[in-house]
């Protein structure tokens, strides 16, 4: 399995077709891979395991998500709050202080 992911990473060209997001709107695809990357990193760090498989999610979200969204930290919100965080960034600060369910 780890060998498969390394081979997949070596032969990575671009984000492949994801059947969870078959339609024109790819916003959730970007958000999901961003979330999966951070969850994966957190989980691997907690277990003390190799975080290389997490690179797949990193490559996919880098391919799909606009750089400005990533740099502005717009994606670090629940999906329903994405538009809010894009257009009202000061609200993001308030949202960050609200206790959330931990990323398990």
């Amino acid at each position, binding site marked *: 399995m780890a060998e498969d992911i390394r081979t997949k990473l070596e032969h*990575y060209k671009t984000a492949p077709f994801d059947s969870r997001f078959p339609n024109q*709107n790819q916003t959730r695809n970007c958000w999901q891979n961003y979330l999966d990357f951070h969850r994966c990193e957190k989980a691997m760090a907690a277990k003390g395991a190799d975080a290389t498989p997490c690179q797949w999610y990193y490559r996919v979200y*880098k391919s799909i998500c*606009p*750089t400005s969204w990533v740099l502005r930290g717009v994606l670090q919100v629940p999906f329903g709050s994405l538009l809010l965080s894009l257009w009202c960034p000061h609200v993001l600060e308030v949202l960050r202080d609200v206790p959330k369910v931990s990323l398990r």
Partner: protein
Amino acid sequence: MANHSQLGFQDASSPIMEELVEFHDHALMVALAICSLVLYLLTLMLMEKLSSNTVDAQEVELIWTILPAIVLVLLALPSLQILYMMDEIDEPDLTLKAIGHQWYWTYEYTDFKDLSFDSYMTPTTDLPLGHFRLLEVDHRIVIPMESPIRVIITADDVLHSWAVPALGVKTDAIPGRLNQTSFITTRPGVFYGQCSEICGANHSYMPIVVESTPLKHFEAWSSLLSS
């Protein structure tokens, strides 16, 4: 690009656009046939050559129900074929992001390195001789030819739309949403498009230029850009 007073489509440079042009020709022929028939019947009627004493019209009713149904099927079948063809899953070789701003586009190639640049229209005062007014840009999008390209389109402020007629692509750029479209260029060349959603004072002055080249030239260009 379109020539002066051009009425028809630009030469198709992607397989989908080729299909669309053929379908348009077919649909236009159907429309021409119907219009000719209607004009003919109208003329006959005006010359009072279409009178009848019959009150029983079963046969003619049948004909002018079945015939239109056949015409509709003749239109629907190729139309749906192309619609499904557009949705075919073709694993892309490259993902390009196009972000609309007032009034320029930003393009990002982030599959490997973080390549990003802005694309502004070349003002007419700075246009070299022989170049196309209101269509040229300072930095073109370069893509490898004959490769499936995925484009993710969004906007940073207001609605825009990313359109390249020769490739049969037009997709709205909506703030907060990532819209996906894809195309394959059948040949190398330079393809022009313009913003297709009203976005303010300079909506007509933020064109799109796609340059399709063989892979090795694309690789050379992207190495140059990343250095």
